[in-house]
């Protein structure tokens, strides 16, 4: 059984978080809520999303998996206005998801989840952690997009730093400890990342919200933030670029 009612904005948020990485996703449903874990086709980035049942206005569900075409779901959600309540139900007989927006009923065919593997989360040792305001970070990322396709992120005991270098131009964003919500770094840690991926990961975060960043040396980065008024949590992993000579 899957029978729920939720604000359309929250579902739109779920799509914004997952669709940059995959077009199709497996929604793992349990009585506690929904979780999605997916890896992009290049195996460079992973998203791990949790949406608690408390995020819903109404929530009744048993354990099950729903294979969802995110483009299609996005198209349906575009029909809903901000603040609209959306009813989502699973119809076992026809294997379809029934989405109701006001008087509109949309029945959506589901995908076979057999072809969608359960991704393993790599165990990572990322010693440094910084909490940054989304607006600060996105300013630095936008500036970097203009000069390069990758950027370096580094954390030491005093600051968080973002650096990008193109053929002729560079971008540098240094946030001292006082501007950070949290900083913990036993030493200096630095890794390089693709701007495309990284910018997609911070885009869904509202500008005043904090983003938590865990980083190591030439290791993946872990980006975490809350959404849906803290009833939802997103963890991204992004593999680094390593420019060894």
């Amino acid at each position: 059984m899957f029978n729920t009612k939720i604000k359309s904005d929250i579902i739109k948020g779920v799509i914004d978080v997952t669709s940059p990485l995959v077009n199709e996703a497996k929604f793992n449903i349990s009585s506690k809520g929904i979780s999605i874990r997916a890896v992009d086709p290049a195996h460079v980035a992973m998203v791990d999303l949790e949406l608690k049942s408390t995020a819903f206005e109404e929530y009744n569900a048993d354990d099950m998996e729903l294979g969802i075409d995110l483009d299609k779901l996005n198209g349906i959600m575009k029909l809903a206005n901000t603040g609209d309540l959306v009813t989502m139900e699973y119809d076992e007989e026809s294997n379809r998801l029934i989405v109701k927006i006001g008087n509109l009923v949309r029945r959506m065919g589901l995908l076979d989840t057999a072809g969608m593997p359960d991704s393993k989360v790599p165990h990572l040792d990322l010693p440094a952690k910084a909490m940054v305001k989304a607006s600060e970070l996105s300013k630095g990322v936008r500036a970097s997009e203009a000069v390069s396709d990758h950027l370096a992120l580094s954390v030491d005991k005093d600051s968080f730093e973002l650096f990008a270098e193109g053929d002729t131009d560079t971008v540098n964003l240094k946030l001292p400890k006082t501007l950070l919500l949290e900083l913990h770094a036993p030493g200096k840690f630095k890794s390089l990342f693709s701007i495309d991926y990284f910018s997609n990961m911070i885009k869904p975060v509202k500008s005043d919200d904090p983003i938590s960043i865990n980083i190591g040396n030439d290791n993946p980065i872990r980006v975490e933030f809350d959404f849906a008024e803290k009833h939802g949590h997103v963890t991204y992993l992004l593999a680094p670029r390593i420019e060894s000579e």
Partner: protein
Amino acid sequence: MGDLVQNATKSQKKLLAVEKKQSPSVCALCRGTKFLCGKNRCPVIIRYHSKTKVKSLLNTLRLEGASPPSVFVGRIGYPKVAIGPMIPPVMGDTSEIDTPERWLERTLDDIVDFRSQLVRGKFTVNVTDVESPHRIVEFTRELALSKNAVFTDAMFTKKPYGRIAFYDEVQPHGPSAPLKTLDITNPKYEQCIEKAYYDTDLKARAAILDIYKNGVLISKIQRAFSVGAFGVKKNRRFVPTRWSITAVDSTLSEELMKKTKEYPFINEVRAYYLNQFDNRWIVLMVPSEWQYELIEAWYPNTTWNPYGTGISIFNSYEFYDGRTTYAEIGGCYYAARLAVNELLNKERRQAAVVILREAHPGYIMPIGVWNVRESIRCALSQPYRKFSTVQESLVYVSKIMDIPLQRWIRNSAVLKNQLYQRKLEDFIVR
């Protein structure tokens, strides 16, 4: 990587040094189409015009010959464009003249020679007038749909003028003249093209895919496409020859790519090599999700780098999600993408593909994107070298190509991605 740099030969080091003072040639980005240099005629193309042999002009207003069949749709003045047949002053089976798929064994001189015989008749129409009852429009379309060479009788209002016309993407042709009347014998249509022509509810994309799957040559599909033979009836229109070539390449490769992206990866790193018309081609394939890039390096004194003192390198690429803008380097990007996907579909495999092209000074004139499509097809039909890593394949590249490896890598988005971007599974502790 460090060893490779040290292994660079002296000649390669010289090339590295030159690069600093190199002025990037706008020609390679423009190719006679955009007038980026500010002049109102392309000096490169004019230079080839002046060098070509002066053919005796046809001293007549009437021309009879067997059209290969061949038609031309101009782009100047769009949406009012000049359409018409192309006719050589000879009879018999002239089909080779407009079948670039058969030209790889010819020399550049041969190609220019037989193409320069083609006289282009011009008749100005609005691009939407595909169903006009005017006989010139009807016969031009019939020629484009025909299977074999067709006897054609044209009357011009002026004597055919000009020598040979070169384009970047389109095959060269000979003199041209405004048409007064046109008459042709009954042509025999290419069967599956005819079927798509009469199906006015079938979308153009589905039509060309069907015809392609039936084994019809790209040049034939493109010819019919340019006269507006495909698509939903109200959307049909003439498509300038130049645009129709890329439209067909791009559409077909998009369809093939959808399948490529679902196949398992190839098992090894591969390198295919071909030297054609003094162009060195290397096609690298890496077991990976679909990525694609074409990098072209133009030596000084080659077609699209006529005045530079250094080598100009240009690239266009796409990652798995594809691209939304037109490729910087133009139609050749799509022509090569088609050739690459043909092989991957045949093998039912997926790969990241990087094509490296070194155009050496023997490649002196623009002959059309068919050259790129057919060269890549030919390269891919030959045995390839196997490597276990990208790095090893790059050592091979550095042996074949004159341009040093770092310069290729610096100009390549896909190679950088393959060399530097790690995957998450690299960090799973076993």
